[in-house]
């Protein structure tokens, strides 16, 4: 958190959300232009977030302003981050690494159309804004092409997207760089592939189905919730994110209607509480999350209670083992505590932690992430200089 600049509170409401604590389920037959019913997860969801864009990376700003002179190392070893402007976790990392004299270089998907960028293929070097840098550690998160300000229906828009897709995927898997949460091993992780691994490591999981007919599915036989198999936020227009949040399944209303795409239908488990556990290297940081319904995290986040909590050793061992299995260095597990048992819901690779820290009034995860990145960079720098 930085110490300057107080603004008016009324510059905040870019969030136009459904503020109800328990979202009502509207009738399922609202037509859309295609003549099909509105997909279940889009019904009654009026959460829209206008993501701010513009350079919020401290190191990029001070270098562009010519306020700082780089060290004598040329090319300068650095951490390369592929993200988007509004990724405040990475914006904060930029300041934290600057405090330690570690150079960070940033490519944001929503600001990448006017970059002076050359990436060498025969050497692990990148020239950005006339500065030659040597990435030692690369972290890609929230570098989603859907936020690139182009129209994919035009030839120039489709061209820019396709070029960046190929190059960003290559940057995310180069064998001559080290990675945080390497895409090579984490790219396949989604809510569905995670469940079987979690069960194999001894964690309980809810009964789950994937279906285009949610009204006909009732895994576990009782109440169920419907979840997206993909992202929680869709960005059909660059910078405008629409929410797709879990909701109770009303089988009477869903009927036999077919969805245009499969969704997750999952057994509803009455839980004593929920846990979010951050894994940072070998360190675990736990928060207890108390909310009234599954969507409240997004539609009414201010009403959610977040409290720091210890992670019991038995659970910690399983989460560390799973993180190692998935090659995750920084990630967040979501779990239910139901009947005294820990039930795995999902692991978030591109996890946010600053919202949880803000609610809990701590900086434990940020501190751990900054420490871990600096230490890993130090190891890689030592190895590089020892060559």
């Amino acid at each position, binding site marked *: 958190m930085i110490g300057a600049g107080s*603004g008016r509170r009324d510059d905040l409401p870019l969030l136009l959300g459904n503020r109800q604590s328990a979202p009502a389920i509207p009738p399922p037959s609202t037509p859309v232009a295609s003549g099909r019913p509105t997909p279940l997860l889009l019904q009654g969801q009026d959460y829209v977030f206008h993501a701010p864009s513009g350079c919020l990376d401290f190191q990029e700003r001070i270098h562009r302003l010519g306020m700082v002179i780089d060290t004598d190392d040329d090319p300068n070893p650095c951490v390369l981050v592929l993200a988007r402007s509004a990724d405040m976790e990475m914006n904060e990392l930029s300041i934290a690494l600057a405090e330690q004299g570690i150079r960070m270089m940033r490519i944001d998907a929503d600001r990448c159309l006017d970059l002076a960028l050359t990436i060498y293929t025969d050497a692990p070097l990148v020239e950005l804004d006339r500065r030659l840098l040597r990435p030692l550690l690369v972290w890609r998160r929230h570098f989603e092409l859907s936020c690139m300000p182009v129209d994919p229906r035009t030839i120039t828009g489709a061209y820019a997207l396709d070029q960046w897709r190929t190059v960003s995927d290559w940057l995310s898997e180069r064998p001559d760089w080290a990675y945080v949460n390497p895409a090579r091993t984490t790219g396949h992780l989604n809510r569905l592939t995670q469940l079987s691994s979690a069960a194999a490591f001894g964690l309980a999981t809810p009964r789950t189905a994937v279906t285009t007919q949610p009204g006909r599915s009732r895994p576990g036989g009782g109440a169920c919730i419907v979840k997206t198999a993909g992202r929680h936020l869709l960005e059909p227009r660059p910078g405008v994110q629409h929410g797709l949040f879990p909701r109770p399944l009303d089988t009477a209303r869903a009927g036999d209607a077919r969805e245009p795409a499969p969704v997750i239908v999952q057994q509803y488990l009455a839980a004593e509480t929920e846990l979010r556990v951050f894994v940072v290297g070998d360190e675990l940081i736990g928060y207890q999350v108390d909310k009234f319904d599954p969507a409240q995290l997004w539609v009414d986040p201010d009403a959610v209670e977040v409290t720091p909590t210890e992670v019991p050793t038995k659970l910690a061992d399983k989460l560390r083992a799973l993180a190692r299995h998935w090659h995750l260095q920084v990630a967040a597990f979501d779990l239910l505590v139901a009947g005294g048992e820990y039930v795995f819901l999902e692991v978030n690779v591109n996890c946010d932690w600053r919202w949880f820290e803000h609610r809990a009034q701590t900086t434990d995860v940020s501190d751990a992430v900054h420490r871990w990145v600096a230490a890993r960079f130090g190891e890689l720098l030592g190895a590089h200089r020892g060559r």
Partner: protein
Amino acid sequence: MSMQELAAQVRSGQIEDEALADFAVEYARAERISRSRKDD
């Protein structure tokens, strides 16, 4: 000025340069927005 010295200015709020002060204001605004919003 070194990167560390500039970062220390931003952390403390004791900013001498106008352009850096502008950045700090933008940053604080983005931070307030992000606090109101859960992502993943």
